[in-house]
C-alpha cells in the first residue's frame, strides 16, 4: 500500500473529529472519501498532511511512518495537498505560483511547459498576477500539485463553490489526470460525481469509517448510501 492510516484519532479542541480512522490507498488508485459536511473527510486530509495533530494511531507512506511529520517534509516525500480553499498566492504571478510549487518538487512527467499546454488558461496568464476566478484558481491549485510530480494527491473538494459548468470542467481535469495513472485521495461533496471518478471509497460519518469497498460494492449497499450520503 502507498498510504495507510491505522486507527488514527484527532481532535479539534475537545471534539473528537477522527475516531479510529483506518484506510489505505494503493498506487494508481483513486479513492473517494464520502460523507456529509463535518464527517471528517477534510480533517483526514489535513491529518495526513501534518496540519492537524494525530493524537494516536499511525500513518504510513511508502512503508515509512509519517505520523505528525512536518508538512514540508511530507511534500518532499511525494504527498501533494490541494486544500479546499485553494490558497493561491494572489501577490505572485501565475508562473511564480507554479515555480514555487516546482522548487521542492521532483522531476517527472509534469513540468511548467506541459502544465501550460494542459491548462491553456494558465499559460495565457503566466506573467500576470494570480488574481483569478474560482475555476481558474482551482486549475492552478491542481497544476501546483501536479508540477511537483507527487506520488499521491490529496484533493479536497475541488468543485466546491464553482458554477455547474466550471465544476464540470474541473471534473474533466480530474478525470484526465486519473487516466494518466495518478494516485488521488479525493474528497468530494457530490457523491455521484466522486464515485464516477473513483475506484474505491470510504464512507465517513461523525469522524468514523462506516463503510468501505469498491464503488460497485458501495452502490449496491443501498442502506448505507441512503443513510450516510442521502443518495
Amino acid at each position, binding site marked *: 500500500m502507498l498510504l495507510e492510516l491505522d486507527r488514527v484519532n484527532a481532535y479539534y479542541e475537545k471534539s473528537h473529529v477522527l475516531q479510529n480512522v483506518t484506510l489505505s490507498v494503493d498506487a494508481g488508485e483513486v479513492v473517494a472519501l464520502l460523507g456529509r459536511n463535518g464527517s471528517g473527510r477534510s480533517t483526514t486530509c489535513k491529518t495526513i498532511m501534518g496540519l492537524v495533530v494525530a493524537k494516536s494511531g499511525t500513518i504510513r507512506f511508502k512503508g515509512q511512518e509519517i505520523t505528525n511529520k512536518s508538512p*514540508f517534509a511530507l*511534500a518532499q516525500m511525494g504527498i501533494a495537498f490541494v*486544500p479546499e480553499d485553494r490558497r493561491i498566492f494572489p501577490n*505572485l504571478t501565475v508562473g511564480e505560483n507554479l515555480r*514555487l*510549487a516546482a*522548487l521542492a518538487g521532483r522531476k517527472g512527467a509534469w513540468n511548467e511547459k506541459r502544465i501550460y499546454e494542459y491548462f491553456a488558461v494558465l499559460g495565457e496568464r503566466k506573467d500576470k498576477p494570480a488574481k483569478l476566478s474560482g475555476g481558474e484558481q482551482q486549475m492552478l491549485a491542481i497544476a501546483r500539485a501536479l508540477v511537483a510530480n507527487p506520488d499521491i494527491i490529496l484533493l479536497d473538494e475541488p468543485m466546491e463553490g464553482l458554477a455547474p459548468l466550471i465544476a464540470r470542467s474541473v471534473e474533466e481535469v480530474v478525470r484526465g489526470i486519473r487516466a494518466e495513472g495518478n494516485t488521488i485521495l479525493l474528497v468530494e461533496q457530490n457523491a455521484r460525481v466522486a464515485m464516477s471518478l473513483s475506484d474505491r471509497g470510504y464512507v465517513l460519518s461523525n469522524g468514523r469509517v462506516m463503510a468501505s469497498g469498491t464503488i460497485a460494492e458501495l452502490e449496491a449497499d443501498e442502506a448505507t448510501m441512503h443513510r450516510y450520503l442521502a443518495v
Partner: protein
Amino acid sequence: MRRTEGLPSYPRRERLPAIHLTLAQLTDQLVNGITLGMLYILVALGLNIILGLMGVINFSHGSFFMLGAYLMYQFNGLIGFWPAILLAAVLVGLLGMAFESVLVRPLYRRIPEYTLLLTFGTALIFAQIVRRVWGDDAVRVDTPPYIPDSINIAGLAFPFYKDVFLVLLTVVILAGVWLLLNKTNIGIIIRAGTRDAEMVKILGINMPLMFTVVFGLGSLMAGLAGALAAPIYAIQPSLASEWIVLTFVIVIVGGIGSFWGAIVGGLLIGILTSLMALLWPPAVEMTGYFIMGIILLVRPRGLFGVEGLFE
C-alpha cells in the same frame, strides 16, 4: 501654534523665520534628511520583512542596529574601518539567526504578544549588556583620513561619507534587496510566505529554515545600518530605543510587508524630520508621529499596505 512651554527639555535654538532660509540651508537639510532616511530604510526594511513573513513584532531590532554601531566601534581599532563595518554586520546577522532559532521559534504557535514581550525584554537586556561593556557615555568613530571631508557638487559642499557615499551605498543595497525579492526563488518564497506561510510549507519548502535565514538577513541589514551610522551619530545605549520606535512608525506609515512602503516611509520621515529642524525645531521629534497619525486616519493599512495582512 507656538505653545512650546509644555516641552521644556528642548535646547533653545535660534529660530529662523521661514522667509529668511537660504537655498544652501534648505539643500543641506534636505540632503541630511535623505541620509537619515536611507539609514531608516535599511533598518525598517529588515523589520518589515520579518514582520510580514513571520508575524514577529521584533522590539529587539533597534538593539541590532545599536549593536552594529558598537561592534563597528570595537573592531575599528583592531582591523580597520571597512573590515569593521563588514564584520559588525555579519556578526549581528549571525546573532539574529541564533536569536530566532533559540528564542523566537518556540513561540510561533502562540499569539503574537508572546514574541512582542520576548523581544521587548531582550531589548532591555541588550541595552544593559552594552552599558556594562562600553559604558553609559557616548563613544565615537572617526572616518579614516583618506576619506575626503567634503565634495563639491554644483558649487555646494557636501560631507562625502555621510551625504554621498552612504546614500549611494544604500541605493545599491536596496537594489540588491529588490532583486533578491523579485528575481530569485528565495524572493518568491518570501513574498508567498508573507501571504500564507503554511501553504508555502505544504508546497514542500522548509519554512523553519527560511524563517531563520530571513531573520538573519533582516538583522544583518540593521547591523549594517548601525555600523555605517557609527561615524555619523554619537554611539550610545539609547540608540536602540530611539531607532526602534521610529522604524515602527516607518513600517506603519509605509504598510506592513511592503518593500516600497519601507522606502517611501523612511525617506518621508527622514526628510520631513530634517526640514522640521530648520522650520520649527521644537517639533522635530514629533514629526514622525504626526505623519503616522495622519496616515492612520486616511489609510489605516499604510501607504502601500495590502488588504488581508494581519487583519
